[in-house]
């Protein structure tokens, strides 16, 4: 475990890294327009990153031990169905989370 003192050093540095990722395009293209190669990045990367992050959230599931990810996959399926059906982000997120919490309690 990182000590509280080390965490206090790490937090501002981590904050600077995050700020750098947010400020980068504004600093780079403050005086000129983004090239075509950047437009290409702009279009395809967000869904790719989100897909990676969904898998990232499921990475610690012990697949070989019961209930082997059934709860997570069932709740995720509900999120997808709710979102395609009702198109309400908050309903999908909270509905899926509530269902997952119930599954955690009963399974």
């Amino acid at each position, binding site marked *: *475990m*990182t000590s*509280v003192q*080390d965490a*206090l050093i*790490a*937090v*501002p*540095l*981590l*904050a600077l*890294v*995050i*700020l*750098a*990722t*947010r*400020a*980068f*395009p*504004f600093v780079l*293209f*403050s005086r000129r327009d*983004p090239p075509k190669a950047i437009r290409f*990045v*702009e*279009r*395809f*990367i*967000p*869904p*790719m*990153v*989100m*897909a*990676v*992050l969904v*898998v*990232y*959230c*499921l*990475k610690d599931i012990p697949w070989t031990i019961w209930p082997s990810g059934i709860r*997570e996959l069932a*709740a*995720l399926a509900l*999120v*997808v169905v709710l*979102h*395609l059906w009702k198109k309400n*982000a*908050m309903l*999908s*997120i*909270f509905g*899926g*989370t509530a269902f*997952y*919490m119930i599954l*955690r*309690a009963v399974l």
Partner: protein
Amino acid sequence: MVNSKAYRYTDRIMLSPFPESAPPSRRVHGRRAAFRDALHAAFPVTIPVLFGYIAIGIPFGLMLVKAGYPWWLSPLMSLLMYAGAGQYIAVGLFAAGAPLSGMLVAMLAVNIRHIVYGLSLIDRFKAAGRWKPYLVFALTDETYALLTGVKVPANVKPGLFYAAIAVLDHSYWIVGGVIGALAGALIPFSFVGIDFALTALFAVLLIDQLKRTRDPLPAAIGIICAVLATAFLGPKNMLIAALAGSLAVLVIARGRTK
């Protein structure tokens, strides 16, 4: 803020001659009043984020305290870092005692997606004036979605409206994290699993992006690379490998057709 009587007196005179009793129309429309109007206009739009950030902020504060850190680290991280996934990952890395260099690389990998958000806001932020630095700092997934998806009311300056959205979202995130950190000891075991809200949030953002782009290839590449990275490199190292790998595959796959 200078805490003297004289300063407070002039401050009041400049803002409003009748601070408490005057009707809104008689108030001097100063900077603060303009921002207050912007907050009023922006609040309804930010309600989904209010619920989302409280719900996702609580487990963040809870995880932080359960990992053995003092409660005040929660608002400090939320104030300075202000990144949902980034702060969750930071708690995990703190708890695992990861080296600082590893943390910085991981943070860069997780938040590199923010570069993409900024690219589509360069023109929009040109009119934001003195709020621009804060808007750039506070550019989270949800704030980005609101800034690009919501129409600015006619009677509010765009820059102020964007700033109001960003400030409200930021405050929700800080409050959620503080509640989680302070109530951490009181929250019963049945709260286990609420962190699934983050997974659901990413899934919802993914579905929205798939609907908008009508192109499943980038997401398919992302899923396949992330699964392979988890299988071969393990859960700890999968994120950077998955992002770098899928980006490379994407460039190869789409570079040819362009």
